[in-house]
């Protein structure tokens, strides 16, 4: 808490210095400073964590990029770093990440938004109080459990509808991932909607608007920035999700945007390698750091976008 910056200045000094009873107490001052310094270091620690992440990823990736030219990494269309004929086209993993994320978001964003609107504008107090924690539970289920659910429950059902669907596919992993993300989108959007002042809602209702009109024409526009950052959090979650894809999507590096095919994502590649047989210090081992760096940069971009959105459009109620 910073005190006012500039000193009040009298054109002619008043009194003769500061009275003893009002002067600053050194001991108190020092103690407060020490505590503040401690608390500051706790806050600054988070910066250290980020730096450590960047350091670890860049250090190993550095060696990687000394062997593999960046252009290969970005433009090669094959990802076979562990094979004899090694290719390092991150696009392959990116395509899997993007495809599965797209499927997930196609589930999570509409459903999450509808649920948020429903809970904040339509549902009674009781429904909301019960439904919200319940939804949050959905977000709390360990993702590995979702992974097996996708593999052993959803995929067979989808195969009944669409018999050509392979046993591992981005579709079913993506769908389940979408359901996992619903709570994040719904809960945050709902918070943003509820933060819209009642005065705006009353204004709308007083004009004779219905709930839906109020929800869509007044509440949603007023909560745009909050809803947008909820979506961005959803995207980050989708891009970073690991176990569901590792279990249910097939881990087949496959340059495709077709969700009915199996695919590998950046995250599932990293666990795969972590579980495997790779000698340390080999180029294959370093690929996971290069992949991790790519992932970090992606989520960083999304997060910054979200931060900017929040700042830029901070509630103009």
């Amino acid at each position, binding site marked *: 808490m910073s005190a006012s910056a500039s000193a009040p200045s009298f054109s002619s000094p008043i009194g003769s210095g500061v009275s003893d009873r009002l002067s600053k107490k050194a001991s108190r001052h020092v103690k407060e400073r020490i505590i503040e310094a401690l608390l500051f270091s706790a806050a600054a620690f988070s910066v250290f964590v980020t730096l450590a992440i960047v350091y670890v990823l860049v250090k190993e990736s550095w060696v990687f990029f000394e062997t593999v030219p960046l252009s290969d990494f970005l433009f090669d269309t*094959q*990802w*076979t770093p*562990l*094979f*004899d*004929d090694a*290719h390092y086209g991150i696009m392959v993993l990116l395509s899997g990440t993007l495809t599965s994320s797209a499927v997930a978001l196609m589930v999570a964003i509409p459903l999450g938004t509808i649920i948020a609107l429903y809970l904040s504008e339509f549902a009674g107090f009781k429904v909301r109080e019960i439904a919200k924690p319940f939804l949050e539970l959905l977000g709390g289920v360990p993702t590995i459990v979702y992974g097996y659910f996708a*593999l*052993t429950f959803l995929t*067979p059902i989808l*195969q009944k509808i669409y018999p050509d669907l*392979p*046993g*591992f596919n981005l579709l079913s992993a993506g769908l389940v991932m979408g359901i996992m993300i619903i709570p994040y989108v719904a809960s945050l959007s709902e918070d943003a909607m509820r933060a819209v002042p009642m005065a705006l809602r009353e204004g709308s209702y007083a004009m004779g608007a219905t709930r839906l009109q109020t929800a869509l024409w007044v509440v949603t526009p007023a909560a745009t920035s909050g809803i947008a950052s909820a979506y961005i959090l959803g995207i980050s979650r989708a891009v970073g999700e690991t176990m569901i894809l590792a*279990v249910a999507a*097939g*881990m*087949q*590096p*496959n340059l495709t945007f077709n969700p009915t095919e*199996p695919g590998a994502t950046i995250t599932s590649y990293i666990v*795969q*390698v*972590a*579980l*495997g*047989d*790779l*000698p*340390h*210090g*080999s180029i*294959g*081992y370093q690929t996971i750091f290069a992949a991790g760096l790519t992932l970090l940069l992606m989520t960083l971009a999304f997060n910054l976008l979200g931060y900017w959105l929040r700042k830029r459009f901070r509630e103009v109620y």
Partner: protein
Amino acid sequence: QVLVKIDGSSTVYPITEAVAEEFQKMKKNAVKVTVGISGTGGGFKKFCRGETDISDASRPILKKEMEDCAKAGIKYVELPIAFDALTVVVNPKNTFINQLTVAELKKMWEPSAQGKITKWNQVNPAWPDAPLKLFGPGADSGTFDYFTEAVNGKSKSSRGDFTASEDDNVLVQGVSRDNNALGFFGFAYYDENKGKLKAVPIVNPKGKAVMPSIDAVMAGEYEPLARPIFIYVSAKSMDRPEVKEFVEFYLKHGGKLAKEVKYVPLGDADYKHAMDNFSKKKTGTGFGGEAEVGVKVSDLLKRNPKE
């Protein structure tokens, strides 16, 4: 604290786990044993830093790993402890495959097949015009290394467009759900899922199609897809009585326990020989850092190990 630390291959894990379980029971928990799964490579990494006493390995130690160990002054004894029979499987609805030759497997799996060999009839015109769906362990597993070495003649040389998973159950599921699938993995997974899968007899170098089985491996007939699996024991740790005792227990009871978890035990003579190497502290590897297919375990144990 009396602790034996083991880490490494997921393939070897079930045997080591069984041995550890029995050993601790015998010692009434006076000795603690931990078994981790970080893959053969991950295991060697820790092993060569001196963090573990024993490393499970589904392939011999490689050059780079030997150097790491040498740098850290870690010496080790290489002990084969069982065989794994790599099993090639197809969907039970598949009626046209009754056996496969290594050449046919190679046609399916070699790097040049990538994107080209996508139908069964491209491998053998007698087979139907149906898509060929391949499943295999992850490219970073010892199982994959051995299979590519045995089939394509070079470790890690393979096509890349197949469904890979570190989790063999995932492969079982994949093959059992897809009529046009072909896959390979350790024998144990086939044995547990016989109902859902059809194992394919492999034509061995002598021209005989052999169905994978414990007996066939022990008889030396299931070639070239039977591979030995190993533990590496750190020479420094061997001086600790609990490690020594554990390894001896391993070599004494490993065969029986391996069979219990569906692996193929070595011959009795081989275990004796291994015990002998162990007590003489014959450090180093019999492979010299190269992958090799079709080595007889008895020959291997006789080699003069290099470090």
